[in-house]
């Protein structure tokens, strides 16, 4: 069994103002998805969601800018850890991520361990 990080990437500029009912739905779809992975005994850690507002980036030369580090308009807003037989299974597990219903993407990265430096 290998471990993978699922990195949630999304972009800003949304005019999406969800209603409380929609928020409830989003919340349920996330816990259902994560609960489903946990039910398969594939969850290593639920990791953390990361805020956007109030974040800063320090660059070389102690240059401090507001907001998360972004290349385009995309930023990371969370990470979690799972285990899977291989990358294909990890991809299957990631496919249910509610992030994919919107503009987000999920990046799947094998964790570097002492016997896997790839």
């Amino acid at each position, binding site marked *: 069994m290998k471990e993978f990080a699922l990195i949630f990437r999304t972009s800003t500029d949304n005019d999406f103002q969800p209603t409380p009912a929609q928020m409830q739905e989003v919340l349920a779809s996330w*816990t259902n998805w994560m*609960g489903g992975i946990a039910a*398969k005994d594939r969850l290593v850690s639920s990791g953390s969601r990361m805020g956007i507002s109030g974040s800063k980036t320090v660059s070389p030369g102690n240059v401090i800018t507001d907001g998360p580090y972004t290349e385009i308009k995309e930023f990371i807003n969370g990470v979690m850890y799972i285990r899977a037989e291989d990358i294909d299974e990890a991809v299957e597990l990631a496919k249910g991520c509610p992030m994919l219903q919107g503009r987000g993407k999920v990046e799947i990265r094998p964790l570097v361990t002492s016997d896997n430096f790839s």
Partner: protein
Amino acid sequence: MIQELYRKEYGRMVTVLCSRFGIAYIDEAEDIVSDTFLSAAETWGLNGVPSNPVAWLYAVARNNALNYLKHGKVFHQRVKKDLVHGSERSVEMDIDLSDQNITDSQLRMLFAICHPSIPAEAQVSLALRVLCGFTIDEIAQALLTSKSNINKRLFRAKDKLRTEGVEIAFPHEGEISTRLDTVLMCLYLLFNEGYFSASPDKVLRKDFCLESMRLTWLLAGHPPTALPRVYALLALMCFQASRLDARVSDSGDLVLYEDQDISRWDQELIDRGSRFFVQASGRGEVSKYHMEAAIAWWHAHPAGEQEKWENILRLYNQLLILEYSPMAALNRAYAFFRVYGKEKAIAEAEGLQQLSGNLFYHSLLGELYTGVDDNKARQHFTKALNLAGSPAERAVLEKKFPSQ
């Protein structure tokens, strides 16, 4: 009469004696107490039951113990050398059978039995025998196994307690939290053995539940162990136990949750559970017992179907994210069915491939496929039947088969 006293006092007396002598002499302590009950049976049969039978038993057990200390040669030498609370006056030692010492001894013994070196299964049997005074027969019957199996299990566990030199003592302050987790797991299993046992003996099953609640209650009454997760476990037990009467029909059959007569739920236990749950909350600790107690809360309170099952599903998700367990995974799939319907739940349940050797995995899929694809339903029920261990389990499954 003697039977009731045995159930109630055997464990207390063994525990007190054993705490005094040390875990190595657990068999001796059990012998002394058994002898005491034997002489009670003989004496009371001839002379009638004394006005205070408990005091009689304690007095005789105390004398037997002191005699054993003075005259049991081998025992004497061993005990004199390394008495747990060894001191000069050890030969003249007293046997303290006060309520306070009984409680303290039971708690210390609980920690000794739930030592990490003892397998969980053996911990449960030991607790049932030594702390709760159930007979080998009763334990074998409730755990659906043979007497010789239970005897072997107890023998090995006692041997381990001796060789590991486990002390009958409260763990040190820094250890309490981790040691407590093993204790709570044992009490949780003990409760479940009673609650989910397929044994036809209704009274015995209830006694298992009540005994595990009594021991958990002792932990809650002891300040160093009165932690939120202890109250959460107590709340869970109360919510579940409230349905003990409603879930068994007069003829002894299991009544499924959906078919239960709500007026037979024990409202007093539910209220007590709610109070424990309040005591478990708001101190920043959220254990799996909190999640399970919250799930049990929803089961114990009438509510709209949608609201109830959405909350139960959410809680099972959170429970699994906190800690995986096969039963939680299966129960989550069932809750998924109640919220999103059979087709979606089938996809969730079939994702649980790691459980394909589990009886409940197949009985759940059998249930989900019933009405969707009866052929598949029958296949899963057949697999479940092959995995079922007891006639009682098979009887429940056979009723579920969709008709051809």
